[in-house]
């Protein structure tokens, strides 16, 4: 039994090492999460990531959120074949997913409790961080079903348009506040990923 436990321990450590290896060998620290950094609200996004109304044909009802991971865009469906499009940051390779969920909860200036998997991968992260301008979740958070994933703000506006997160979707604080006021709890969220070969 002890042998088995020891073996399991060794195995877990090995897995941990493998998982943390890319971070250890990376030239720069993880770009996505920089707890404590206060967001630069004056940061100007590239036109591609700026909030704008676009042509968008869909059978989903107005008010639905459709997230395209490959495009790094979040669409809020509007009547008349259009949508409000926001630029987003998405999960790193291997941290992307797809599915159908609902917004289960909404919070302003949310506190951050990184889930255990995230702590294991990025041990330097705090165990808890109170909401505020230095919080990586930014100004607002919308909880996706019962998952650990959120649509949230950010203190790193420069990461919009990139693959950066552990599976969450981030918008600049200005945009996430705008979206937050437009969508109630219960809003349908469709997450679409690039097709697999």
């Amino acid at each position, binding site marked *: 039994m002890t042998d088995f436990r020891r073996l399991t321990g060794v195995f877990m450590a090995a897995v941990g090492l493998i998982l943390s290896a890319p971070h250890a060998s990376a030239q720069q620290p993880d770009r996505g999460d920089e707890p404590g950094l206060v967001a630069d609200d004056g940061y100007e996004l*590239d*036109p*591609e990531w700026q909030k*704008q*109304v*676009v*042509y*968008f*044909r*869909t059978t989903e009802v107005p008010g639905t959120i*459709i997230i*395209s991971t490959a*495009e790094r865009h979040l*669409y809020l469906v509007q009547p*008349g074949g*259009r*949508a409000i*499009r926001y630029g987003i940051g998405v999960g790193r390779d291997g941290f992307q997913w797809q599915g159908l969920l609902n917004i289960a909860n909404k919070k302003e200036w949310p506190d951050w409790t990184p889930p255990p998997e995230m702590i294991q991968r990025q041990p330097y992260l705090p165990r808890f961080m109170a909401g505020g301008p230095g919080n990586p979740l930014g100004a607002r958070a919308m909880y996706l079903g019962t998952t650990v994933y959120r649509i949230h703000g950010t203190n790193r506006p420069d990461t919009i348009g990139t693959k950066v997160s552990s599976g969450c979707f981030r918008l600049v604080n200005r945009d996430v506040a705008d979206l937050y006021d437009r969508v109630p709890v219960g809003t349908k969220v469709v997450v*679409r990923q*690039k*097709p*697999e*070969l």
Partner: protein
Amino acid sequence: MMRTFRGGLLIGLAVAVLVGVLAVIYEFYDTRTLKRTVRRGEVLCGVNKGLPGFSIPDDKGNWTGFDVDFCRAVASAIFNDPGKAKFVPLDASERFKELQSRKVDILSRNSTWSMARELDYDLYFPAVAYYDGAGFMLPRSRNKETSLDLTGSKICVQAGTTTALNVADYFRANNMKYEEVKFDKLDEVVKAYDTAKCDTLSADVSQLYALRLNLSKPGDQMILPDMISKEPLAPVVRQRDDDWMMIVKWTLYAMINAEELGVTSENIDEALKSKKPEVMRLVGTEGNYGEQLGLTKDWVVRIIRHVGNYGEMYERNIGEKSKLKIPRGMNQLWNAGGVQYAPPVR
């Protein structure tokens, strides 16, 4: 004996010469474009003389653009070499006649598909490469979200264009008022807008994005997502030349299908190992669609390797990562918010 032998020889010779002459005449008048193209060793593409994002040469004569890349895709499918596309700049007024008279094999020149054009010139538009239409540009500060909010606008348009007529129809149909500010030349229209002689500019949406680049404050301008007319831009070929038409049509559809299936110029080697039936049919690891077209099994692989899928071609030349920055809009795939829809390779 000798006489009949000589006579036979003469007759034989005459027959040989006749066959030779007929063969030459037949070759000369052979209307099958694919055959002529293969023998020539290059595809002759009629293109616009200079339209940023669609087809424009640099000072060394290297062509770039969406229309140019489509022609390179056709050349890649046939010759496995995008360099085998030769570009022939054509004026708008002469383009259809030049195609009709076989000066070019294909017109890839921002041409709107319409019934009259197919009928009048005996031509065929195989598939829509880019959905365009008349739209509006206005200062961001006007804070409008749809063209239905434009009542009371002062709209600059080029006189004598279909745009001017479309604007008139649209405002009448929606019971809205506007003031038309007309100019004969496009430069004058743009200058008038830039100096606030009008508060709205109307032209085809793809053109509005190009015109915006030359305004004094491009960042302060917005282009509404609405289109008030249908301008489907498509490549053009001659009628009654089905083998060639099929190649042009399915080259475009292969590129759209590739995007839908996630096949790109970067992962094409992985795609060749795919076990997904749709991907296998597309890249030729299953079926013989390429051979049936008169090409090779790997025709799509050649297209994707050299030019990329539809989305790659779009983004590189006119998309939000290019200078023009035209959002995909209607040209997004049918399952991602747009209307680009290709029949399946099946």
